[in-house]
């Protein structure tokens, strides 16, 4: 990926080279040159690539950062925090919901003064879910106590990442530092970038090792108590120290930026001013949009308008003095905030700029506030012209007509308003009576009768056609089959994942009955709430007029790693015993975010964060046995299934419904194919999951009231195949069949056999 140019690199004192890379690539490139000790991470768009690039580089031996795939951002932040107390260098990258999930950890990191560097690849926060770029996550960072460096393009992502570490570790600062760049606009756009040619020069700049003499939980001769219980009157003094350190960070950054400029020829003052020397009107924007506006300034200058643009390279500490100074002679400025502080009469930036002007006695510059570009809405040059026009109008009128407003929103036209198209599915069509479930009075166990699948074609599908999943996606064949076994009405809740995003792309929904999406990790808790409200409102007689003929069956659908990040809430819901089903479509990875490893990814399987290279051959740990974990919560019913054994899955769905309506929580796992990321043919999915069953990697069984029954035993049917027969069907596993990977293959086979043996023992002994 590196491209060397034999070109002059300006006045730089350090040897540099040209690369053609995106912001995410440059964040990873800087991190690999620094060679951090530890990165704890969790996939979320658009920041995930940073970990992916680092994993690829690690697999080819380019660095030795310990990359720790966590079970959610709260954990990734915890891993990073723990690592940062332990004396080494720590790195992370996240976005939006990931940032929100780790938020609790961040002031702790700052308040206990543990340096690290985290890249925030800015993205809008839910809900509704939006994966594109704005600054709504960034604005939550303003009060965490982290210095925040801003990046307008891939070059500054690289540069800031080098300066951030030096800033964080500085004796006068000792704070974790955030490096913020714009999701997609910067993270995914490739540009020509200059980078240090030699790692030694990077180390010379940031220091070979972190400075000594600070908290180190691994220093056995100097035991230390980190994170004590501290009430008044001491806490305010801790916070004062932190405040001093934060303001120091501003001064220290300027020193570092100076040193960096001498080395590289690239200088980052706290605020960047473009043609501001004599500007009458100005626009303030941050990051990527602050580059576009420069073209607008140039165009306006050609027309004789004294326009200028201003943007910060650092927003914590806020460059109050520098901004006041820059605006001293400006007649009007439009401040664009790419996130709202809802109800605050302006976004965070405009209000801080107004405070800066007031503090420095400037009561004449007119300030216009506009919220723009939310959720990744593009910022075009013509939008920049509009912002300048607002400032020009204010100068001409000597007043600001509309001090605060949104820009780029539109009312829509009434004739395009959504209209209800489909009738609700009739209850009779859903309650066919074709499936019967009876409880054996003696054993308490259920016996189920299902008809040939052909008869069930009569039942309406729960989903409309037209969803946006990939060709050959196993999710919806698996889910529809499962739903065929459920009679009557359902309310469904899907975790964030492929099934959710491909069925709910606004303004369309594939769901014919009520559907809820909340967050990636919180579905089980959310559906618990819906279930309890159902029973409570039913008890109060409040549902009588709503057309309900029989109780709803509440179904939560999860997958794409949702049972990693959502494990805690799922176990909580199981232990509380809500009457609901959790069904997991297991595609063996975080396929929704670009095929990162999840805990259900088996040993040796290739994903975008378990790469294949000379130092690594796929995932290094064994797969999570979620069904057994859920069975250990002693819920009434646990099952596994797949579309290759339809009758088996239908029966389990019917049982699941009975238990979820009569006893409590049910968990089921359906193995489904992901042709794109399993690197298999679209048409092969059914066959591949079938081989997973026949190789005993994915046994079909159920745990009913604590008793395990294998519902399909390939050994008894003489159908058992080698694990390799399954692995050779997928591009993500073919490397495991090479002679050099034989130890990994044997280890995996051994684990499959061990789990299968244990399952057979459970099958034979009802007490196990």
């Amino acid at each position, binding site marked *: 990926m590196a491209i060397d140019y034999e070109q002059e690199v300006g006045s730089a004192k350090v040897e540099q080279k040209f690369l053609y890379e995106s912001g995410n690539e440059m964040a990873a490139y800087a991190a690999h040159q620094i060679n951090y000790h530890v990165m704890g991470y969790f996939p979320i768009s658009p920041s995930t690539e940073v970990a992916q690039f680092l994993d690829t580089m690690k697999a080819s031996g380019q660095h030795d950062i310990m990359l720790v795939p966590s079970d959610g951002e709260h954990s990734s932040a915890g891993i990073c925090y723990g690592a940062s107390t332990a004396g080494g260098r720590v790195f992370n990258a996240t976005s939006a919901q990931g940032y929100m999930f780790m938020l609790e950890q961040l002031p702790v990191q700052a308040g206990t003064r543990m340096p690290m560097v985290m890249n925030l690849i800015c993205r809008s926060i839910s809900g509704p879910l939006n994966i594109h770029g704005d600054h709504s996550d960034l604005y939550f960072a303003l009060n965490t106590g982290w210095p925040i460096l801003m990046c307008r393009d891939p070059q500054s992502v690289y540069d800031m990442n080098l300066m951030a570490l030096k800033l964080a570790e500085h004796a006068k600062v000792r704070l974790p530092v955030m490096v913020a760049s714009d999701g997609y606009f910067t993270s995914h756009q490739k540009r020509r970038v200059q980078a240090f040619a030699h790692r030694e020069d990077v180390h010379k700049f940031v220091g070979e090792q972190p400075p000594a003499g600070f908290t180190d939980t691994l220093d056995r001769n100097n035991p230390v108590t980190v994170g004590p219980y501290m009430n008044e009157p001491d806490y305010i003094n801790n916070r004062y120290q932190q405040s001093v350190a934060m303001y120091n960070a501003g001064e220290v950054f300027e020193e570092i930026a100076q040193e960096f400029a001498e080395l590289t020829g690239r200088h980052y003052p706290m605020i960047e001013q473009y043609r501001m020397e004599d500007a009458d009107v100005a626009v303030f924007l941050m990051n990527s949009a602050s580059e576009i506006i420069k073209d607008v300034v140039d165009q306006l200058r050609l027309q004789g308008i004294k326009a200028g643009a201003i943007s910060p390279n650092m927003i914590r500490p806020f460059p109050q003095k520098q901004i006041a100074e820059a605006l001293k002679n400006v007649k009007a400025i439009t401040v664009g905030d790419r996130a709202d502080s809802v109800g605050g009469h302006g976004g965070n930036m405009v209000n801080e700029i107004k405070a800066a002007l007031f503090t420095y006695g400037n009561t004449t510059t007119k300030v216009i506030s506009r919220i723009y570009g939310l959720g990744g809405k593009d910022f075009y040059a013509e939008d920049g012209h509009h912002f300048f026009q607002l400032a020009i109008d204010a100068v001409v009128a000597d007043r600001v007509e509309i001090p605060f407003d949104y820009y780029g929103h539109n009312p829509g036209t009434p004739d395009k308003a959504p209209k209800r198209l489909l009738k609700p599915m009739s209850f009779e069509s859903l309650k066919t009576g074709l499936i019967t479930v009876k409880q054996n009075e003696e054993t308490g166990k259920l016996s189920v009768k299902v008809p040939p699948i052909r008869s069930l074609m009569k039942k309406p599908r729960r989903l409309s056609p037209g969803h946006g999943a990939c060709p050959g996606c196993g999710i919806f064949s698996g889910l529809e089959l499962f739903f065929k076994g459920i009679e009557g009405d359902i309310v469904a809740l899907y975790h964030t994942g492929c099934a959710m995003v491909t069925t709910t792309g606004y303004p369309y929904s594939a769901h*014919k009955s009520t559907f809820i999406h909340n967050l990636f990790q919180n579905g089980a808790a959310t559906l618990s709430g819906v279930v309890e409200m159902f029973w409570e409102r039913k008890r109060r007689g409040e549902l009588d007029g709503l057309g309900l003929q029989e109780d709803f069956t509440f179904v939560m659908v999860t997958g794409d790693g949702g049972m990693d990040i959502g494990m805690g809430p799922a176990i909580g819901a199981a232990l509380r015993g809500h009457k609901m089903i959790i069904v997991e479509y297991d595609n063996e990875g975080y396929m929704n975010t670009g095929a990162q490893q999840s805990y259900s990814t088996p040993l040796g399987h290739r994903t975008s964060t378990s790469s294949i290279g000379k130092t690594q051959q796929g995932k290094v740990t064994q797969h999570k046995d979620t069904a057994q974990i859920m069975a250990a919560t002693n819920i009434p019913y646990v099952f596994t299934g797949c579309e290759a054994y339809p009758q088996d899955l239908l029966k389990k769905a019917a049982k699941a419904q009975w238990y979820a309506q009569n006893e409590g929580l049910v968990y089921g796992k359906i193995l489904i194919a992901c042709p794109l990321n399993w690197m298999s043919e679209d048409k092969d999915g059914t066959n591949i999951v079938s081989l997973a069953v026949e190789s005993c990697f994915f046994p079909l069984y159920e745990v009913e009231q604590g008793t395990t029954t294998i519902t399909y035993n390939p050994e008894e049917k003489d159908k058992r195949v080698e694990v390799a027969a399954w692995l050779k069907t997928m591009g993500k596993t073919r490397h495991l069949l090479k002679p050099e990977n034989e130890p990994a293959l044997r280890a995996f086979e051994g684990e499959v056999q061990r789990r299968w043996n244990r399952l057979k023992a459970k099958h034979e002994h009802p007490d196990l």
Partner: protein
Amino acid sequence: MVQLPIVNDLGFFEIRLESIGGLGANLAGKMLAEAGVVGAGLNGVSFSSYGSEKKGSAVKAHIRFCDLNTPIRDTSPVERPHVVGVFHEALAKTVNVTSGIHEQSTVLVNSAKTPEELKELLKMKAGTIAVIDATSIALKEKNRVNMAMLGALFRLCPFLDTATMKDVIEKSLGKKYPQAVESAITTFDRGYNEVKFMQFELAAGDSMPEYVRSDIGVLGFDTQSIGGSIINPGSTFLKNLSISRSGMIPAYENEACIHCAQCDTVCPDQCFVWEERIDRKGRSQMFLTGIDYQYCKGCLKCVDACPTSALSSQREKEGYADTHTVHHQFDLITQV
């Protein structure tokens, strides 16, 4: 340094690729940009439209080239392209692929049609149409559509050097798929050599259509229901997913069908249409009547699942889906 044939006000030569996820337009865009920046010594930027839409749905890639002294500040999508590359001609049905073109623009289409037919299909008033049958080339050479398209795009970008590109192909594919290098280069060459051009003048008195910004939603703050809830359940049935098919289609032969529903069980896209009838023994029974191709993405799982010869796969011929589709009957509130 090489000379760009034409640039806009900001100094950019702009390319937009219109494709569906999975055809490799994103990769082609990256390689094209790399050829300009690394090979030709230009300044450049490249990016794709990103969403959570998956393989098979419409995507765009954007490339800007300029000379080394031109700063690249613009991050917005290419709205006024000098070159458009359409990776799948059926895209024209659902996407305005020629949005924002100039009279001087060239629109390259992966198609077996003639330029005249394409002008009609794309409703182009003027401009140059370039045609390459990339799908046939890719099938023949056992390589990917994007390589043939890339070859043709190189013809449209004379400032790029094909030798460098072959080098890039070798390097980028060589690591992961060394066996694919040779066929990729042949496919690229065929794309370069076999592209056909035809220029169409603007009729006297006529003007090119105004471009419409791509970031204006159909619904607005007066028409969205609050909180983003969708009050129109099941509305995805309005969508047409036929562009997701990449050449192959399942064909259904009713006579050979035993109505076992194996196909429906494995179908990810709810394509199979059933009806309830009385069978020979006088019982009410479900019968498969056909496939609603509007939703079929051509994965062919059903063909694998079919125990008889009722389902088979074939190369999709123009018009086949339209003439053979059996539509789902939706229970509409008002029949339209």
